[in-house]
Every structure is written in C-alpha cells, then in structure tokens.
C-alpha cells in the first residue's frame, strides 16, 4: 500500500534495504506474533475445577475440556454406570459436563468465538498491553495471581478447603474448611493446640528448636513450636509464626495454613485409587488413633495446588514415599510457594464444579450425570483410565466389553474383515494372520454364476468372493443374482477370536474365483490383456524403497533432524535445588528447592502457536507465489516513506 501511495523511488532507504533483504511476510508474521506473545507476559490462568483426575500433568487438559463446550468429552461405549447399572447415556454426559462447566464459571466456547477473531483481537491487544494501563487490564482479564507463586499470601477470609474421601471409618465425609476428625482421625485441624510437650528439645543459640540429636528446626521456637513429640510420630502441632510457613524435620514436612494443618506424611499421588493425594497416618494420629491405609483421601482447595505440592515432593532431592522412592523419607520442599490460587474464582465456584463432577463420590456413587461427568473427564485426559479400580470409587464397578478382568490376557476379538475388490485370497489370508488369527483356512472355488458383464463376473481369478467363520453362514461379497457388489455389514459380520486358547476361532473358509476362470469370456472388457483390470501399473516404481544410501542419504538426515524438532509441545519445567548454607551446627538455608513450571501458560501458548501458524502459512505461501509468479501486490514500502521521517 505504501508503494502504491508514495512510489517516489527512494530505493536506498533503510526500509527498502530491509525489504530487499527479503524480510518476507513469513518472517514478519513470526515477529509480529512473537511481539504479541512477549507483550502478553501475564499468566492467563483462568477457571479450573478441582477434580479427581489421575494424572497431575493433565490440569491444562481438564481446563481446556471444561472450557470448550464444543468438544465435550465422551465415555467409551459399553462402560457401565454404577449409579444406574446400565451404560452411560448421552444425556448423562451432557448434563454432568454442562453443569460442571457452568459451576466452574469457565470461559465461553473457543469454537463459538472463532479462532480468527481471537487471533486478531489478541494481536491488537498485544500492542495495547505495552502500556501500564494495558497490563492492568490484561491482569484483570487473565487472572489476579501474577506469575510468581511466592507472591501469594494466605487469605484468612478464603481459607483452604478440604474434601475428604473416606471409604471406611471416617467420622466425617464431605467438605470442610477446618479439616476432619472422626473415628479414624483422617486429618484434624484444631486439636493439639496447647498440649504439646517440648521437653525433648532444647533452644538453640538463636532461639530455634534443637532436637536431642542436634537437628535444628529453623523457623520454630520453643515458645511457638511447630513440631511436638507428644503429638505422636508423624504428627504436627500448631504454633506457626506465619501463615504458610514450612517447617521440615523428623519424618515429615509440615504445612501450616491459616485455619488447618496436618502432616504431609507419606503424601503421594494415588492414581490407582483415583485420588489426588493420600495421607496415611501410620502412627497415632492427631487425635490419638491411627487411620488405616487407604482410609482418607484429601483434596486441598484445588487439585492444581495439591498437584504442585506433590510434584515438588516428587522432584525433591531426598527420596519420598512409594511409588516415588524411599520410605518415610524427609522431603524438605518449599510447599508454601505452591499454594498459589491461580484464578479469581471463588471457592464456591470450584467446589460446586467439583461436586457437580462427582468430587464427593468417594463413599457412595453419585447421580448418573455426576458419574458420567467424572468418567468422561478422566477418560478424556487419560484414555487408559478406567473407573472402579480403587477404593475412592466405591461401587463404581465397570464392565468393559471384550476385556478380560482376570486370568491370562488374551487378544481382543475382531470382526472378519471385508475382502477388497479383486483381492487375491493369499493377500486376504495375510491380513487375517496380521490381525492375529492362528487357525486353519480352507480355500474353496466358488461357482461363478454371475450375469455376464456384472462386477462379480469380471473378477480376476483367485479373487475372494465370500468368507465364512467356523460353522457360521457364508458372507458373499457379490450378489448371487445380479453380480453387484454387496455392502459388507460390519455390524453383523461374525467375530474372529484370535489365539489358541479356549474359544479361539479355529477355522475360516474363503470362497474364491477359480484359477481357470476367464473374465474376458464373461463380459470383461477391461484393457490390459491377462492383467485385466489393472491398466498401466506404476506400482513397481512408486513402491521402490530408496533407503538411505550414499550420496542422497543426506535427505534421510534432514528428515531425522527435522523429526527431532517436530515434537509435542511441552511447557518448560525445571527444578532449582539450592545447596544448604550451614555454618557449624546452624543452617541458614536448608533443603530449598524451587520448581519452575510454565504449564499454566499452556492454553495461552496454544492460542499463540495457532496465531503464529496462520501468519507463517500465509507468509510462506505469499512469498512462494510472489517469487514464482512474479506477483508483487504491495510494491516496495520503502519507496513510499523516507526513513529520516521515521527514525
């Protein structure tokens, strides 16, 4: 456009040189999109729902699933809903997912907004957010948390929220803002406040607690202890000096919060039972009695927060509990920095979504919609997940058709495949073998009585025209009366059970065109001499395997190297382990581990990648077209403006 308006011919301008230096639209597109990306350096964290998902890494997937109502997850057909005893219905899934999404207050459907509209608006906004006001606006749009988790401090008015999944013996199930203390004492918030015995500890030179073996507990004082022997092994007392502070030592790590506290003793992601976190009080609990293994499942405030804690513990340097290695090992981790609320959602929003999606289904099954919602989400983020495998899904007995639940594993049955047009019977047998069929195959010549000139009459010799499984009925590929091709009904085709075990299919009969059959004598008019039906065959050339030979093998290298970079996007994630700083018996820093995880950018980066992809595609196509076809619509922008007026 500049070239059209100006055209004064300042060919030596800087802008002109840049343009002639092939600053192509493709590169320009990348630059513009990259600037937009950098400008929007604000966490796009938004609504998510605490949920009983099995994989900690899947939070972004769960979030995207809930946000995009155009792609509601579905449950594999045939799974039995324990709430109804029958298969999940589409209405169950729709009701559960929609309710959960509405309760979560999630974003409207991306599909409805339109990718192009989002891209344009985002690029425009990218420029705007350069200003301080723009940053404030962006922060209000994308969340209030900022990007530094350590900046967060606990809000007493919005305390952490506990959800208990007790399968047996728990005195309380459901949700509470102060924890639970029942028959099995899963977790307790307020007891032990003033009954702790500090006799086994001494005061260090700087007022810290020092145990009998010399261990120094930083951040704690005898007057305000954070760990007490009289509370029992693996237990926690109170008296933290600040909300969110961490006290590590002995055989546990302690999380102190505004209103509740417990020992993170043997905390791990219990994927098998479907819980996010599992707390096992192997010794006397906070209230004096032990909880049995598997009794309690705790969900702290939101799943993502607890997953961050678990991730931090897993990534720690000193072991941890099974399945991540170690036994009752100390995990000195910066847990408090993980308690960063990632959105402006109220706790009620999150809790409603959890409950609508079945978060309180531990002790009993929920409604069909709740069960369906939970199953759909779990299956969506983890296709290998099956419900009913743990105590937290009590009653969720699921039957998956075709899968044996006991004994030796066997291959799944498959429906007899449809013979392709003119498929030779040897090729068809090879396909059966590839599918795992090990039984015998009987080949029989068919009586060729098809009307002359019909599809069945002009078949090549040895072509398959029918198949039979065991003693079942013969399935004809061509109609016996008209010779026309018959649609292969896959819904009624018999199943073949591979293998050699009980129930395995032992015989398949194939009906073929006789070897001596002459299609030309039966109406065949296809050119190609004895190779009727084929015409000129370039397959020998097109199917050549060139391999990676010298000297053209560099193409293989290029393919390999580009394949290295064509990987699945993965958010940068690394751990910084700060060495302990000790002088004598006093340690000023101990076990500081910081985890950097940019996965909360995932949704936002997905948008940016799409936008950049559009710019790159348009730019590349334009560049190629302009160079090959001589198309130059815009002219030289440098000719329209003098850089002296710009710089």
């Amino acid at each position, binding site marked *: 456009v500049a070239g059209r308006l100006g055209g004064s011919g300042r060919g030596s301008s800087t802008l002109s040189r840049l343009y002639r230096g092939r600053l192509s639209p*493709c590169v320009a597109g*990348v630059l513009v999109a990259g600037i937009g*990306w950098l400008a929007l350096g604000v966490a796009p964290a938004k609504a998510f729902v605490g949920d009983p998902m099995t994989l900690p890494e899947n939070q972004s997937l769960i979030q995207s699933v809930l946000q995009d109502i155009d792609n509601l997850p579905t449950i594999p057909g045939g799974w039995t809903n324990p709430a109804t005893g029958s298969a999940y219905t589409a209405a169950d899934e729709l009701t559960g997912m929609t309710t959960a999404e509405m309760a979560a207050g999630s974003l409207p459907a991306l599909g409805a907004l339109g990718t192009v509209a989002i891209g344009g608006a985002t690029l425009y906004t990218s420029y705007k957010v350069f200003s301080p006001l723009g940053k404030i606006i962006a922060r209000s749009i994308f969340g209030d948390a900022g990007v530094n988790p350590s900046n967060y401090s606990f809000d007493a008015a919005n305390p952490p929220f506990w959800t208990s999944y007790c399968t047996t013996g728990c005195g309380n199930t459901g949700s509470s803002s102060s924890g639970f203390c029942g028959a099995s004492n899963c977790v307790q918030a307020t007891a032990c406040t003033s009954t702790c015995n500090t006799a086994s500890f001494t005061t260090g030179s700087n007022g810290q607690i020092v145990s009998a073996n010399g261990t120094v507990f930083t951040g704690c004082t005898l007057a305000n202890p954070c760990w007490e022997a009289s509370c029992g092994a693996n237990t926690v007392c109170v008296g933290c000096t600040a909300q969110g502070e961490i006290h590590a030592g002995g055989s546990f790590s302690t999380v102190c919060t505004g209103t509740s506290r417990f020992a993170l003793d043997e905390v791990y992601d219990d994927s098998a039972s479907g819980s996010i976190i599992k707390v096992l009080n192997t010794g006397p609990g906070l209230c004096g009695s032990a909880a049995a293994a598997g009794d309690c499942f705790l969900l702290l405030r939101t799943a993502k927060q607890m997953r961050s804690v678990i991730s931090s513990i897993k990534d720690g340097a000193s072991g941890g509990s099974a399945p991540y290695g170690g036994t009752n090992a100390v995990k000195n981790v910066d847990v408090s920095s993980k308690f960063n609320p990632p959105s402006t959602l109220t706790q009620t929003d999150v809790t409603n979504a959890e409950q609508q999606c079945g978060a309180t289904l531990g002790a009993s099954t929920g409604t069909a919609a709740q069960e369906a919602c939970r199953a759909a989400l779990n299956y969506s983020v983890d296709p290998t997940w099956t419900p009913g495998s743990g105590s937290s899904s009590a009653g969720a007995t699921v039957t998956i058709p075709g899968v044996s639940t006991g004994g030796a594993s066997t291959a799944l049955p498959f429906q007899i495949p449809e013979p392709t047009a003119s498929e030779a019977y040897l090729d068809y047998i090879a396909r059966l073998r590839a599918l795992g069929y090990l039984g015998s195959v009987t080949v029989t010549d068919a009586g060729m009585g098809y009307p002359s000139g019909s599809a069945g009459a002009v078949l090549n010799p040895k072509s398959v025209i029918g198949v039979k499984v065991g003693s079942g009925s013969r399935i004809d590929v061509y109609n016996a009366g008209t010779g026309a091709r018959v649609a292969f009904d896959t819904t009624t085709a018999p199943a073949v059970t591979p293998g050699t075990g009980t129930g395995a299919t032992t015989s398949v009969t194939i009906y073929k065109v006789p070897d001596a059959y002459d299609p*030309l004598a039966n109406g065949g*008019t*296809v*050119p*190609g*001499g*004895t*190779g*009727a039906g*084929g*015409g*000129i*065959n*370039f397959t*020998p*050339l097109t*199917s*050549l395997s*060139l*391999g*990676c*030979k*010298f*000297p053209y*093998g*560099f193409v*293989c*290298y290029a393919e*390999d*190297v*580009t394949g*290295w*970079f*064509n*990987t*699945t*996007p*993965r*958010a*940068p994630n690394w751990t910084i382990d700060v060495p302990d700083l000790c002088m004598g018996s006093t340690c000023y820093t101990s076990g500081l581990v910081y985890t950097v995880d*940019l996965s909360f950018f*995932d949704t936002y*980066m997905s948008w940016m*990648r*799409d936008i*950049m*992809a559009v710019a*790159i*595609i348009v730019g*590349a*196509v334009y*560049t*190629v077209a302009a160079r*090959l076809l001589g198309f130059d619509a815009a002219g030289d922008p440098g000719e329209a403006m003098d850089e002296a007026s710009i710089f």
Partner: protein
Amino acid sequence: MGFVWSGILGVLVDAINLVIAKLAVAITALLSILPNMPALPTPPSQLVAVEGWVAWALPVSTILAMLVFTASMYLLWYAVSIALRWAKVLRGNS
C-alpha cells in the same frame, strides 16, 4: 471387433507394465550396490526436552511444513523451468 481391440490394447499395456517392472528391478539392483549412510546418533534426552520447550513456544511443526513446502515448490519450479526454457517460454537462467 471390440474384443480384438481390447486384446491388442491389453497386450500393449502388459508390455508397458513389463518394462516398468524390469526398470524397477534394475533400479533396485543399482541401489543395492550403493553403500548405506551411517545412522545418526540418538539425540540426548536434554536436547529432546529443550525441543519440546521450543515447540511449546513456537509452532515448530508448521514452520517445518512450510520449509518443506517452500523447498518443494522451488525444486518443482526448477524442474518445470527447464522444460519452459526449452519451449522458449522462459528466457535466461532465472
């Protein structure tokens, strides 16, 4: 008469197919003489992780696809331009 023509055409097609098949055999035999290129080493795991990060920040798959597209188009044009120059549609070496 139609059957006669069909038969003649069939023989011609068979002859062409035979030439194509033998040509493929000859090429295969020639290629079998050429030495194999040594395989590239497996990239270190750290590099694989970084590649995932790069793919997170940039649409790497799209960039690679466009590079392949651009290179293919230029090669195709190079081949077509030879024929066009021979037909005097193009002049010069560009």
